[in-house]
């Protein structure tokens, strides 16, 4: 079954074309990569999918339903969650609250329940907390549940952000450069973690990544864009030897 289908997606920023005629199709349970040099338009693709930008042109559909034009929180409610290139946690809240809050679109109780602390409210808050605690357990973050994210190491913040994304029970997870800024020891751990999430949660994952080691060892399929245009698509091996990709990355020692 097709999870995500993007057709002819184009985005202009006041005259600047950040993305042109982008097409992709993600199948259930796939782990796919999106790479490209700095400023290529990768984050723009994710911002369009998550509803943060409204595309100049093109259609995005998720599980057969069009989601173009929806607001970000509606997209999350449909089952797409993401992380950010520059970690965006709520820094003055506890880690536990951060993870609980990502279930905001499926609270299933109203303001009256909240004021009167009805049975429904208490049951739902307990379930929300239980799910968050379960995720903290899985990610070995139990000890930092009551900490504020700003006091955690960069690596732990990355983990909290992924846990927060999973808390909304997504069917598609978008990871924007999850390995950015991590020391190489943590990168290996991150690769294992993503592989494990992919297997355990049985969800589709689409990731942007600069570090070739990460995409090459995780993704079954990779799309390469440069200046907003797709220049190559294929398996990691095909991509590694594609002349256009080598040219685009020329002088970039990361390849």
């Amino acid at each position, binding site marked *: 079954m097709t999870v995500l289908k993007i057709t002819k997606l184009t985005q202009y920023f006041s005259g600047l074309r950040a993305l042109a005629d982008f097409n992709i199709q993600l199948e259930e349970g796939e782990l796919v990569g999106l790479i490209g040099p700095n400023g290529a338009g990768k984050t723009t693709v994710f911002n369009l999918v998550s509803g943060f930008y409204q595309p100049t042109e093109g259609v995005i559909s998720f599980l057969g339903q069009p989601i173009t034009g929806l607001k970000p929180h509606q997209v999350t409610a449909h089952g797409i969650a993401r992380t950010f290139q520059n970690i965006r*946690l709520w820094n*003055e809240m506890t880690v536990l609250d951060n993870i609980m809050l990502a279930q905001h*679109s499926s609270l299933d109780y109203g303001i009256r329940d909240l004021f009167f602390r009805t049975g429904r409210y208490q049951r739902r808050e307990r379930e929300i907390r239980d799910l968050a605690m379960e995720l903290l357990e899985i990610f070995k973050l139990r000890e930092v549940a009551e900490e504020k994210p700003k006091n955690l190491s960069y690596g732990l913040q990355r983990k909290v952000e992924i846990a927060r994304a999973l808390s909304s029970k997504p069917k598609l997870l978008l990871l924007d450069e999850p390995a950015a800024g991590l020391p190489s020891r943590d990168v290996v751990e991150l690769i294992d973690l993503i592989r494990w999430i992919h297997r355990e949660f049985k969800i589709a994952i689409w990731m942007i990544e600069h570090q070739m080691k990460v995409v090459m060892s995780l993704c079954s399929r990779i799309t390469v864009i440069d200046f907003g245009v797709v220049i190559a698509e294929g398996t990691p091996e095909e991509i590694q030897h594609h002349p256009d990709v080598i040219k685009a990355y020329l002088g970039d020692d990361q390849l």
Partner: protein
Amino acid sequence: MKQKLSVPVALLALLMTVMVLAQYEVIDLYIQTIILFVGINIIISSSLNLVNGHMGEFSCGHAGFIAVGAYVSSVLSVALFTQDRVFGAPLLPPQYAFIGFPLVLLAGGIAAAFAGLLVALPSFKTRGDYLAIITIAANYIIITLIINIDKIGGARGFMGMKRVIFAMEDVAEIPWMILWVFLFTILSIIAIRRFVSSTYGKGIIAIQQDEVAAEIMSVNTNKMKLIAFMLSSGLAGIAGGLYAHVIGYVNPKSFDILKSTEALVMVYLGGMGSITGSILSAVLFTLLLELLRPLQIIKWVAIPLLLIILMQFRPEGIMGNRELSDIFPRLKKFYRFK
């Protein structure tokens, strides 16, 4: 369990003490009025804090919503329970005033909440800074409207609320307003606390800390802003209703931008996003205002000066964004509603 009951028991004891002292005139009317103002100011500061502190927006016209609540509840209670020159014979038997009064207060709150909705709808669609300007404008518009409605006294003000209190006293000779102010202050604090400690309400704290992340990670930010703003202005309306009935007289000038400024000073004095901070600052500010009353207009030199000094030496306010229970964790076991 015994410990958890200690807060309600202490509050009840406090209420009984104040009521008995007032009943037997151990504390005079002046002191009673100050105590009542403390309660009303607690509602005003903690409700504004919801928008300016917890949610991190900047609303500057809180007095406008206080005015809506004050006038709506005053007109209702006078028309319903008293013989009035303009509104004629009471629509309901005056002996029901003590049952009707809390409902009338709520009606004032609901009216203020809808006024809040009207203000919030256009301002949250645009960028954040507009809220400050639009709320100041709304404050002026509301006062101008009141001045131009002759039926409710226009610029002269509106009175007759003392007769509502007398109607209650005809049923039972107790200091009713102490009871009502106390009750609604406690209910307001409980409402705000329950709101911001629920996952639902924490949506506005997420907005304050990173609005983009909040919107993308599943918070309907527009709806949450409207709800928080309506809750805030609704509670301000209830405070207004209480104020009008304590004084027995309302005048549009008492709800001008100066009153809004007082509310802002209390929020920043107490600490953004701290409920205990708002309570503390309301107590301090009310007392300070009374001490400075002989200075009359000069108090409006003293208060901004205080604010400047505060911003210099403790910009986060007395409590910062912490609650009393964060500073003294042992207090937690006494709290019921978390």
